[in-house]
Every structure is written in structure tokens, then in C-alpha cells.
């Protein structure tokens, strides 16, 4: 299940990371090395084994459906790369 250049391009696109064309081959080799090492997991017998998603056994707690923090747009937008009048300014996405 080797990772080729096309797979690297596809995964980088999915992850929204621009990878320059000259890095693609090197990345494919790097990722292949790591995935080959990971392949040893196939040796483990996991028949009938439930996946362990959380070590905290209890279900997720519910909380009151009320506003606990809010009403402070200046604080919310204070780290925005661009903001005007307490609004986030984002690139135009709808023509």
C-alpha cells in the first residue's frame, strides 16, 4: 500500500497544506518509511476486539442549554487577522 506522489498531492489537498512540487517525492518517501514501520500492527490479533476511542469510561455529560459566556464580540474577534466593527473579515467566497 505504498504512498506515491499522487497520494501525497491528494492528501495535502485534503489537509489544505500547499506542498511545492519539488517536495512531493521526498514526502512520499518519508511517509512510506513511517507507514511501513506502522504496518507491524497487522501482526496483532484484534478479532472480536472493540476499538478503544476513549479511556474515560463514562458517557459524555450533558450541561444546561444556557449561554455561559458571550455577548462580547470585541473579545471574540480580538485575534482576527482582519476584522471590522467586531466582524471577522473573510475573503469573498460567493460570486
Amino acid at each position, binding site marked *: 500500500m505504498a504512498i506515491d506522489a499522487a497520494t*501525497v498531492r491528494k492528501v*495535502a489537498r485534503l489537509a*489544505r497544506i*500547499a506542498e511545492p512540487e519539488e517536495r512531493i517525492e521526498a514526502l512520499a518517501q518519508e511517509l512510506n518509511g*513511517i507507514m511501513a514501520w506502522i504496518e507491524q*500492527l497487522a501482526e496483532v490479533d484484534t478479532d472480536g476486539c472493540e476499538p478503544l476511542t476513549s479511556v*474515560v469510561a463514562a458517557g459524555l*455529560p450533558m450541561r444546561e442549554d444556557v449561554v455561559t459566556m458571550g455577548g462580547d464580540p470585541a473579545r471574540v474577534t480580538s*485575534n482576527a*487577522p482582519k476584522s471590522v466593527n467586531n466582524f471577522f473579515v473573510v475573503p469573498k467566497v460567493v460570486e
Partner: protein
Amino acid sequence: MSALTKLTLASALDGLAKREFTSVELTKAHVEAVEAARGLNAYILETPEKALDMAAKSDARRALGEAGPLEGAPLGVKDLFCTEGVRTTACSKILENFIPTYESTVTSQLWRDGAVMLGKLNLDQFAMGSSNETSYFGPVTNPWRAQGSNKALTPGGSSGGSAAAVAADLCLGATATDTGGSIRQPAAFTGTVGIKPTYGRCSRWGVVAFASSLDQAGPIAKTVEDAALLLTSMAGHDPKDSTSLDVPVPDFTQFVGKSVKGLRIGIPKEYRVDNMPAEIEKLWADGVAWLKDAGCEIVDISLPHTKYALPAYYIVAPAEASSNLARYDGMRYGLREDGATLTEIYENTRASGFGDEVKRRILIGTYVLSHGYYDAYYLKALKVRRRIAEDFDKAWEKCDAILTPTAPSAAFGLGENSNDPIAMYLNDVFTVTTNLAGLPGLSLPAGLDANGLPLGLQIIGKPLDEATVFSVAGAVEKAAGFSGKAEKWW
């Protein structure tokens, strides 16, 4: 006033209580030590004015008889904890100018208990690394050097700044986080004590997320008692973290120094790895002998899936990271780069804002979660994770705590492993199992290798049984009599 920085946290608190010195004096001594140690690159942001202001207020509270458990103690904070009004970067370019408008739960509890913040400590970018070399702000240099050498060594990672700062007396203790060994491996490399508590003990709220099912906060400190003092303050239920455990937090210090007579200590045979230095084998045997002398029963145990823990981790952690780090889109906070289309803006922002190791892990995570590979990799890794947890469940039928080495080597040179990701990942071979199983693990210094570098032993406990971990660690600390200190060269 350099003598004040040599104190342990416990003795400093004692001195403050006896009015031998004030928090302002203690804090000033640390501020000066921090300024004089910039060559170590442990602090990436110093906050001396804030520190002295907090110290003055602390002295005022003490004068009113309102002293908290950590009243007046100057601490360092790993730059993964959000601090209100104080830049928090995760040592990344993407968060280079991020100033949180809120305080992490863990740090807020330290300030509630009277502690003073000296500044923010360096780490591997987004806590991804074992040598501190992935930091956007450059690596930390270990205060320790091999005998007769001036080669720069790594303090370990990801909490390298925290460990180096404690080892070099640049704070009385520090916050840290551990996703695969990021508290314990740096503690071992710097002759300090670090504990990763049970998953859920410390709130993750306000801690920059890496792999949410594995991340846990904990302290790095000079002694086992100091680590217990800090964890008692840091731990506790927080409704803002849905995985935070709603259980009482005991005063962990009461378990340090408690007799360990009759405790059964498990020795896992799978923790002997190829090429492990003989000195680490010997130190481990010493640990066994010390605990036997203290009245423990030594039991051989088996954790058969140990060798699969790291490969499973390198699926689970990148998968969670790729999801967690999707939030860095350059729209609401953090860096934004230009681009012709929205997708290009995202892609350029993330390409420029993340370092190579972070990108590598996001790509692996995206790959293993992508269509067609999810079952083969991600689901398989979660099943192996179950097997690893089951290994421990079986071990607890035979023992009360487990003793292992912390890391497979002493501190290595900066640059030595940075071109080989898998060699770097193998640093966490003894620590990562407890993250996958959610168990508490503590590393303490127990001896020096032939080059005069510190080595650590790890104590692993049952879920929520930090009490026994602290008792066993206290016994090992007493028997080891480790008093090594890095010789000041910085």
C-alpha cells in the same frame, strides 16, 4: 539572592510562611536567573512585570492571613497553556501573535492558589517532538552537559523548556503536558521529576489541543514532594472539559514518604529493548533492589503488546491532530497568508504557519482517516489500543504499581536524531503505553550515566491511583539519594 533559586518549592513555601523572605524577593531572584540564562532558550516570553506584580499581591494576601497552598511561588508555564493577555504560541508561526482572552483552567488554579507566573516556556511546536527542535523559536539547550564536553544536548521534548527551566533553577516548578511522554522523557533527560496523571485528572480546557484522547497536563518539579504539591493544585473537575473526571482530588503530598511495605511492584519483561545502554539496565535493577529493601514484593509481569504501542500511537495521535489542527484556517485567529482563491488562502496559510513535523503528522493523520484506509489503519490502531489497555488490566491483578526505565537513552546531542523521524519517535517507547491506556506515570531521576548525565525511572500506577505512584516514587527518591545538578555554564 541566588540561594533563593536553589530552594525546592516545598522549602520556599516554608520560608515564605516563616517570613524569612517575601515573594517579591523570591520572584526577583528568579527573574534575574531567567535573564541570565537566555542562552538556554528555555523561556520564549519573560513576564517580569507581571511576575513582580503578582508577587506583591501575594505578599499582601499573606500579610492579611489569606495565603493559598502555593502562595508566592514563582512558576513557569509551558507555552501550550492559554494565559489571559499573555501571548500563547504553541511555539508555532501560525500562533506567533495569538493573545488569549481567557486563562486555561490548570493555570487559573495555580494562580487561585497563590502562585506567580515568570513567563512562557519553550516546547516542540504543538507539542509534537521529543527534542524541542521543532519549536518555531529554536531548540532549548539542556543545562546538563556530558563530563568534559561542551556539546549542546537536547532537554527532551516536548516539554523541554519546562524541564530545562526547572533543572537550571529558573523557576520552582513548571506546568507541562504529555501526549506520548512529553513530561516524563524531558524530566528524565534533565534530572527532574515529572508526572502525567490519569487521563481526565487535569482539565484540558485552554490547553492548545494536539491529540485530545491522549493529552494530559502535569507538573515538572525538583522533587517528588514538589510534583505532588503542584499536581494537587492543577488537578480537579472542570465542567468545561467533557472528559474531566468528577472525582475528589486528595492532597497528594500526604502520600510522599508513606511506607511502601507490602506493595507489589511489577517488572514488565517487554521493557528491555535492543541497544539499551547497560547503565539503564543497571539503574532499573537498582530500583528493584531499593524497593525490595523498602519492603515491596517484586513481581514479574508481561505487557505483551508493548512493541505495538508506538505504531498505534503514530496513527491515533496524528489522526486526532489532523482533526484538531483543522481549526487553523487563517480566518478567526492566527496567521493568514494571501491566495487567489479561498482554498489557496487556506493552503498557503497552513503551509507557511506549520513546521515540517506538524505538517508530516497532519498528512499522516489525513491519510489514515481518508476513504479506503480508515478501517485498515485508524480502526486497527484503536483495537490495538484496546489490547494495550487490556495488558495493564491483567497486570493489575498481580501488582499495585509498575517500575520501568523512563527513556531508552540519556539526553542526546541537538541535531543527532532530527533527520530520522522513527529514531526520534522511539524515545517514547516506555512512556507512550500509559497515554494509550490513560494511566498515571511519573519519572524521577535515579542516577547518572558514565558521562555524568541523569537517567530516570518511571513508576506507572492504576487509574486514579496517583497516591501509590507518589508513595513508590518517594521511596525510590529516598533510596536513590539523587542530588545531581547541572554545573552552571550558561
